[in-house]
């Protein structure tokens, strides 16, 4: 009983950590620009696919991973430069379609370049499972958790202790006021996209040895990251992390105890219930809307 529960918990937390990274990406971009970036899931895919490609071309693993993350960040910057900035004053719906268009372009390019196959690479430190109270934990899961935790701490430091981080926070509070005190909001936008692309790519790189990757895994992962971000109240960093873990754990529990066929539906059923009863997410702040 306990071992089964632990097993589901482990797999939930592992996947949840990736959702958390994706949700942080959504949150970052949403705060900096009020855009929901539907291409966020593609960064997860690009990270995993590029890491696979570089390793296959004989580049040592650590370097391949760094390259994959750096190139993903570059794709994020390109996305701002080519698509978001030119459409600066567009309506929300238009911006949503722009990010959807961008996600199609990214997916299409990867599909042409690296094909439609399903890929994977060896886990970072072997596949010898660790036994904990009858449940098994893959070493790669520990990597996922450790690096996610590290990223969250680094982000916390960045936003609360550095000038650049504070500039992003200021911009998300009030763009005009931020501009007036001399913050380069254009640069803030660039940094936010690069950072969330890198976050997505890190998630993809970490998860690929466990769940495999292919050109089309980005959509579902991205949408679940979006669910996690909304559960967390859209805009709250801590909420995004907790939301990601919560969505991952509930998904794994429901898949294990109720129905594995409906695994993918569970985050969406969850979000409908949450939105019906708590329209601003679990961790969302109470906001009074100005007319």
């Amino acid at each position: 009983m306990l071992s089964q529960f632990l097993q589901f918990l482990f797999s939930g937390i592992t996947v949840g950590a990736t959702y958390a990274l994706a949700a942080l990406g959504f949150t970052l971009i949403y705060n900096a620009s009020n855009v929901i970036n539907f291409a966020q899931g593609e960064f997860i895919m690009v990270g995993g696919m590029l890491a696979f490609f570089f390793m296959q071309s004989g580049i040592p693993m650590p370097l391949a991973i760094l390259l994959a993350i750096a190139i993903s960040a570059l794709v994020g910057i390109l996305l701002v430069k080519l698509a978001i900035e030119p459409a600066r004053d567009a309506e929300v719906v238009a911006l949503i379609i722009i990010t959807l268009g961008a996600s199609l372009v990214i997916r299409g390019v990867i599909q042409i370049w690296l094909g439609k196959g399903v890929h994977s690479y060896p886990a970072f430190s072997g596949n010898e499972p660790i036994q904990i109270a009858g449940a098994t934990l893959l070493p790669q899961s520990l990597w996922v958790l450790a690096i996610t935790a590290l990223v969250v701490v680094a982000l916390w430091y960045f936003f609360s202790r550095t000038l650049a981080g504070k500039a992003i926070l200021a911009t998300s509070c009030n763009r005009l006021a931020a501009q007036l005190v001399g913050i380069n909001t254009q640069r803030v936008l660039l940094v936010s996209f690069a950072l969330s692309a890198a976050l997505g790519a890190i998630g993809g790189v970490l998860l690929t040895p466990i769940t495999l990757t292919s050109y089309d895994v980005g959509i579902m992962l991205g949408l679940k990251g979006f669910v996690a971000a909304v559960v967390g109240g859209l805009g709250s960093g801590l909420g995004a992390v907790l939301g990601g873990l919560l969505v991952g754990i509930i998904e794994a529990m429901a898949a294990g105890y109720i129905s594995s066929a409906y695994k993918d539906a569970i985050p969406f059923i969850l979000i409908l219930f949450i939105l019906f009863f708590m329209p601003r997410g679990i961790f969302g702040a109470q906001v009074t809307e100005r007319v």
Partner: protein
Amino acid sequence: MNALKRHCALMFLAGVLLLLPLALPNNYYYDIAIHMAINAIIVLGLNLLIGFAGQISLGHAGFIGIGAYASAILPTHFGWHPIFAMVAGAAMASAIAAIVARPIFRLKGHYLAMATLGLGIIIAIVIKNEAAYTGGPDGMPVAALGLMGFSISGEKQWYWVLAVMLLFSFWAAQNLIDSPFGRALRALHGSEVAAQVMGVDIVRYKAAIFVLSAFFASLMGSVTAHYVGFVAPNIADFFHSIELMIMVVIGGMASIYGSLIGAVLLTALPQALSTFEGWETVAYGSILLLCMIFMPKGLVPTLAARFGRNDQEEH
């Protein structure tokens, strides 16, 4: 908008639909024209919701899926008459829309997008998983649509059926927008608070238009199923929802003509791009990007403004 202009537009559309077969060399082109008409009818309904009432829906394909699968499952597994199956599907889609409408339309912006997206994905996953009834990922065949001993078959017959349906939908949409109901919708798009102050029950109106567009989507899902003779789960998936929303936006939000243009262009686009071999997705995405960057208001409103006509008259 004055009645004369409205009638002119309707007559013009009727003329185009009447003359179009002369320009269609073979069944392949008929097939494309039929899909254009189907999409145009769905997009007209969706544009009432997105463009006029200002409420986003990222899950509309779910309703199309309900209609399509009702027409596939009820006659095959339960021996229902296809017409009753079609009505039952539309009733079910409307009922689901009505049930979720109240809680959903208290939400705004991205939360509304999330809720409608979730609803659509759940419907798609149910269709994919209940393989005993739906055939799962492989899909299932659909019986022919018969009415009083006469069954519709072949591209030419279907073309005329859909031409009539499209004309009716166009006429209905025109009238709806100029009715008190349509004015209420536009009022709540402009400012919900102002509309409320003027006595518009905003949630009720949003719910009504949501149910109406779900009803039409389901109906067209049934029509598609019967026309194609086969249904597969991708009719209900997230991509189809996105495709429909893109038709609305590219054509022009809150523009009836835009809905037609958007549906025609985006139905033709994948056909035109099929020569690019492998680059379709990239080309499709790039065209979306360019359209939205350079014409964020959509084709018809942008062109109308360009040629100096009053944008307001384009409704």
